[in-house]
């Protein structure tokens, strides 16, 4: 009996880790609940109650012999997007639905997936490619694209070195927008051939929380109203911070130079 209980605690703990990993790599709330339910039933639960919002997970697992267990987990960071991790977790859940691993093993596997290194170089390549090509996409010249690429490198530096010092995402978003806006405005003043407008549009694409906004509306429309509303408000706040940052940058450079 005591042994059973310990095993169950380990299992529920592993499920919480899995849920947290899923939420923090950009999975839909619907998918997180569905996955945790399926994994729970695969381990022999007679009834699973999973409630997930972007900041918390509650799992109640009921065994056929009447044992009950409820655990909760507070999630602090629900804004990442990491599709390699998402896919690996998805594969893992499929694998254990057909042949359950022992709970210790399961937690090990989840930790292994969740701790995968963030590859800075690929992130840098992504920032430069995205900002430079979207500058041309929105009508900029090749020089504008090159400048936007350089600002992309700057935003990458901010994302890696400034983000950890920021109190929260909104503060980071404001500082990143202000600093890159200043850089773009000053560069456009120094090199009159550059179009401030197009460079800025290209680099806004890196900072705009478009994916978050789409995600939030999708959550609402799929029935997870609370999560959707939380993400929506966060996306709106981030957009405000972005607008404030860039507007302040344009204004400061317009007045000062």
């Amino acid at each position, binding site marked *: 009996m005591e042994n059973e209980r310990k095993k169950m605690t380990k299992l529920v703990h592993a499920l919480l880790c899995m849920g947290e990993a899923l939420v923090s790599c950009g999975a*839909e709330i619907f998918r997180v609940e569905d996955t945790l339910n399926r994994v729970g039933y695969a381990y022999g639960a007679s009834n699973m109650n999973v409630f997930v919002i972007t900041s918390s997970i509650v799992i109640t697992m009921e065994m056929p012999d009447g044992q009950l267990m409820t655990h909760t987990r507070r999630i602090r960071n629900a804004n990442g997007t990491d599709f390699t991790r998402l896919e690996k977790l998805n594969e893992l859940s499929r694998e254990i639905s057909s042949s359950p691993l022992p709970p210790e093993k399961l937690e090990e596997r989840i930790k292994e997936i969740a701790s995968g290194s963030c590859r800075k170089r690929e992130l840098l390549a992504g920032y430069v490619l995205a900002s430079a090509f979207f500058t041309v996409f929105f009508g900029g010249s090749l020089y504008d694209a090159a400048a936007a690429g350089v600002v992309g490198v700057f935003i990458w530096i901010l994302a890696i070195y400034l983000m950890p010092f920021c109190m929260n995402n909104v503060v980071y978003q404001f500082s990143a927008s202000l600093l890159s806006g200043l850089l773009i405005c000053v560069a456009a003043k120094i090199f009159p051939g550059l179009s401030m407008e197009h460079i800025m549009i290209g680099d806004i694409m890196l900072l705009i929380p478009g994916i978050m906004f789409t995600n939030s509306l999708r959550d609402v429309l799929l029935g997870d109203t609370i999560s959707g509303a939380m993400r929506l408000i966060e996306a709106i706040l981030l957009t405000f911070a972005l607008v404030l940052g860039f507007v302040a940058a344009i204004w400061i450079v317009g007045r000062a130079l």
Partner: protein
Amino acid sequence: MRDAIIQLITGAVGSVGFALIFRVRKSYFLHVLAGSILCWGSYLAATAALGGTEVFLPTLISGFVTAIFAEILARVCKAPSTVFFMTSIIPLIPGRTLFYFMQAIVREQYSQASNYGMATFLTALGIALGMSAAWTICDFSRKIGR
């Protein structure tokens, strides 16, 4: 026409840039290219067909087409559809209208600002609604198939 081709190509490469940021598997990069071209192509086609003054409906149509494409790829590749949808939809993200919104605010042209703000919001809403419609249909077809 030349502009459209430039947009299709640069938008697709830019989307691969986002695929790198979101850590999509490298073997899916071709899918992302195709998805992004389909997304922007369907947007351009819908804009042309509807007369080119509206933002909302073309975005809705393009979001729908892209989401169906993502669902199909998801079943073929046995991966979550989000992976394909979120990377393909990037060209539709309203970065440009948001910029004009800000510019209008700085220039104190408030009626223009409200127009661009509205366009930004409608674009985002169009994407989400188009995607949800596609999602609902796919969910139905899955359940009826059983």
